């Protein structure tokens, strides 16, 4: 199922510049609901990056819980930078995590652009949850959600 979406990605992305390396949606029990990465990256490495970022997400969530009186945001910000990628995280109130991985070489992406990407993701995820044909906890198969994610991945700058 993921293979199909990767192939579609390949076909659509010939010759277009991509900044986003990949987008993942993780359920509250920490298994993936949706993973999509750009074809040129090795899929396994992307899965691994997302998996390791979950630790940082958990750390941030529990740290936020201890700070009192703060405006607790859903956006977690830059989780950690590696030499190739920057990983951003966002957690919803239902403890579903969104992870966006972008190229480190791309410096033009500002914080509020990432925030707006997460908001778009959250909005279309809410639509998926309200779809009666979707069972919560199942992998996301909505074409509308696919469309939003493809739109975000092929955007330049």
């Amino acid at each position, binding site marked *: 199922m993921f293979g199909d979406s990767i192939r579609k990605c390949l076909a659509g992305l010939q010759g277009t510049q991509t900044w986003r390396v990949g987008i993942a949606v993780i359920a509250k029990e920490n298994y993936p609901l949706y993973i999509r990465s750009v074809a040129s990256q090795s899929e396994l490495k992307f899965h691994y990056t997302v998996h390791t970022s979950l630790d940082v997400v958990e750390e941030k*969530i529990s740290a936020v*819980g201890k700070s009192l009186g703060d405006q*607790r*945001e859903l956006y977690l910000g830059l989780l950690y930078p590696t030499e190739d990628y920057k990983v951003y995280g966002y957690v919803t*109130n239902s*403890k579903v995590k969104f992870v966006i991985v972008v190229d480190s070489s791309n410096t033009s992406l500002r914080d509020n652009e990432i925030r707006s990407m997460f908001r778009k993701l959250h909005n279309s995820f*809410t639509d998926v949850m309200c779809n009666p044909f979707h069972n919560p*906890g199942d992998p996301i198969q909505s074409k509308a959600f696919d469309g939003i994610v493809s739109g975000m991945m092929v955007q330049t700058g």
Partner: protein
Amino acid sequence: MADEVLFEFLHMEIVSHIYKEQQSGKAELDNKDRAVCVSVLEGMGFRVGQGIIERLTRDTPSFKDELDIMKFICKDFWTKVFRRQIDNLRTNHQGTYVLQDNKFTLLTQLSNGKQYLDQAPRYLAFSCGVVRGALSNLGMESVVTAEVSIMPSCKYQRKRRSTSSTQTQSSPLLIYVMCQTIDVFRCGFLFGLGGNTVYRWVIKIATVSVSIPSLKKEKCNALI
């Protein structure tokens, strides 16, 4: 405005449809049938609750603790879903919460006193499910029940869901694995393997059997 009563009418139709379906062909509904109807209604409410809470908490900051979540349910959630706030919230600070609504929207049309009191539970099942679904998606696994003493006031009680029911599922698996390890012992000695090798096999199997029940427990909590 017609939109407010749309859901109330639809809800009444849903309840009567479910009961009629269960009764088709039978003269009277026995307790088992009634329980089936209530659990169908509750299940519908559960799925609706999960979706609604996703939409309602999209823009709210994350919750500090259980009490914060219950306050959200009493104020914002109840306002958006039932168009009023909960009148009274009580807790024992150990996971049990009692929410009292003195003029519950889905009961106001039924009666103003004790008339039709025995019919009231079927009109509360869906809302119990909605509350349970909302809490489940926010991370609070619960058992939600409702009671009515005088219409249209009703009390919802939320108790922490105990995980003891899933632990009994693990013991058959454990017994099965232990039987297998005894066989391993026998085979090991048959083939003349050293005691050390067999011992390591047994430890490996024992650790696998300990981890599998916990996995099953997590999966059960995730599905329900």
